[in-house]
């Protein structure tokens, strides 16, 4: 990667993505080749918003590289609740760590943080903005199942506020991928993401119903529709119910359809889908480890280096 930080998916070229994913493949095939590779390095986990899995995923990936992690803890008990600015917080933490992973409720927080520090900043989610490390593991999952070209992807659910959707949709414009966006009218893609898609010449194909496009999809990426996006509970149940899938829904799908979800799910994917060959969301979550190892290795290591040499390398190159 040419950049020092990972802030948005729009900064990622095809080469950047493939570089990280090639490395992730090696890390997945032979994690021991990476053990201790960054011993003596410290990673700060700064989560200004509750998160267990993204935080644990970064923590686990770091530890597999020999990186020590320090954690800001809960926001309620930190100086942030005393009114300290983000700019001050990250400038202090910069002195403690070699890189910062940041999750923050405000859009643009990671961009701002990166302006104030010299260590790499990884955006682990900024409000309804972006979540690019999730996108890398999403792309890894797609790549390992289908490859990243000549691909038809359906993205369904809360497209307006879903940061994983925003990052994935922009990143996919680097590849030969047709994208279909399936959501209620009120939760369609925001103007900022449409802008990026139009800039790259990508078509925005929008649908109210999954049935219209399901048979042609290679990948169905499902996201949660949250209650608080609706004025009342009845409206939420009526609308959200339209975008839930179960094993029956998938009867018309291609045999090799891959169903993905950034997790946690609530009821948008029924448990009976877990038993089908389509379900890949747990594999996807597990991919967070090799992909985040690869990402940290890329940002912390020598940019010219493409990872340790492993015995399995020839199998995967």
């Amino acid at each position, binding site marked *: 990667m040419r950049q020092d930080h990972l802030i*948005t998916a*729009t900064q990622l070229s095809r080469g950047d993505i493939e570089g990280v994913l090639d490395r992730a493949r090696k890390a997945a095939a032979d994690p021991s080749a990476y053990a201790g590779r960054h011993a003596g390095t410290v990673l700060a986990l700064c989560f200004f918003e509750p998160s267990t899995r993204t935080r644990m995923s970064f923590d686990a990936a770091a530890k597999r590289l020999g990186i020590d992690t320090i954690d800001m803890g809960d926001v309620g008990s930190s100086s942030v609740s005393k009114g300290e*600015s*983000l*700019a001050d917080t990250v400038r202090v933490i910069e002195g403690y760590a070699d890189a910062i992973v940041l999750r*923050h*409720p*405000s*859009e*643009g*927080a990671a*961009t*701002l943080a990166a*302006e104030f520090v010299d260590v790499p900043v990884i955006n682990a989610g*900024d*409000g*309804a*903005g972006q979540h690019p490390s999730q996108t890398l593991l999403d792309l890894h999952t797609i790549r390992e199942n289908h490859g990243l070209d000549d691909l038809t992807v359906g993205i369904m659910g809360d497209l307006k506020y879903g940061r994983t959707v925003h990052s994935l949709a922009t990143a996919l414009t680097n590849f030969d991928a047709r994208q279909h966006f399936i959501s209620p009218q009120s939760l369609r893609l925001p*103007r*900022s993401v449409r*802008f*990026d898609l139009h800039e790259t010449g990508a078509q925005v194909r929008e649908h109210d119903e999954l049935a219209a496009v399901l048979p042609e999809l290679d990948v169905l990426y499902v996201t949660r529709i949250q209650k608080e996006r609706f004025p009342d509970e009845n409206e939420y149940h009526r609308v959200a119910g339209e975008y839930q899938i179960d094993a029956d829904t998938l009867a018309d799908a291609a045999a090799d359809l891959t169903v993905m979800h950034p997790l946690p799910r609530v009821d948008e994917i029924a448990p009976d889908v877990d038993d089908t060959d389509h379900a890949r969301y747990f594999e996807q979550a597990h991919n967070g480890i090799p992909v985040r190892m690869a990402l940290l290795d890329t940002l912390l290591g020598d940019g010219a280096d493409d990872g340790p040499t492993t015995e399995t390398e020839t199998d995967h190159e």
Partner: protein
Amino acid sequence: MSDHELRVSKIRNGTVIDHVEGGQALNVLAILGIDGSEGLGVSVGMNVPSDRLGRKDLVKVEGRELSQSEVDVLSLIAPEATINIIREFEVVEKNRVTRPDRVVGVLSCPNRNCITNADEPVDTRFEVVADGVRCDYCATVLRSELATHIDV
């Protein structure tokens, strides 16, 4: 001397911003941060008949020559504006506004959840794009509603 030229050159020293789209004169002053408290003589003409624009607004600032970078920001709301620098009642320089690449510290981000609205020590910063501006921080795109987000 025509009536039009008289109107433009009536101040002794300063800047006349001409050919401002009708209704935008007060936004021009807001963008320039001129609210009268600086003690500059300011006069505003609104809905003046114009060959080019039908009706135009006109802003004269006595005693201050605006720099090109100051006035370029005006291109966002008054792309046809011409800037006349006046010395001793004479127009000594006449320029068009050109679109800047970025607008810094002038507009506020309309996204209330943007980090620039959270009391951080940064100026707002927008990239000028085809038909509007875009927040460098949260990527929000601002188009026709631009004038209502001017930080005064």
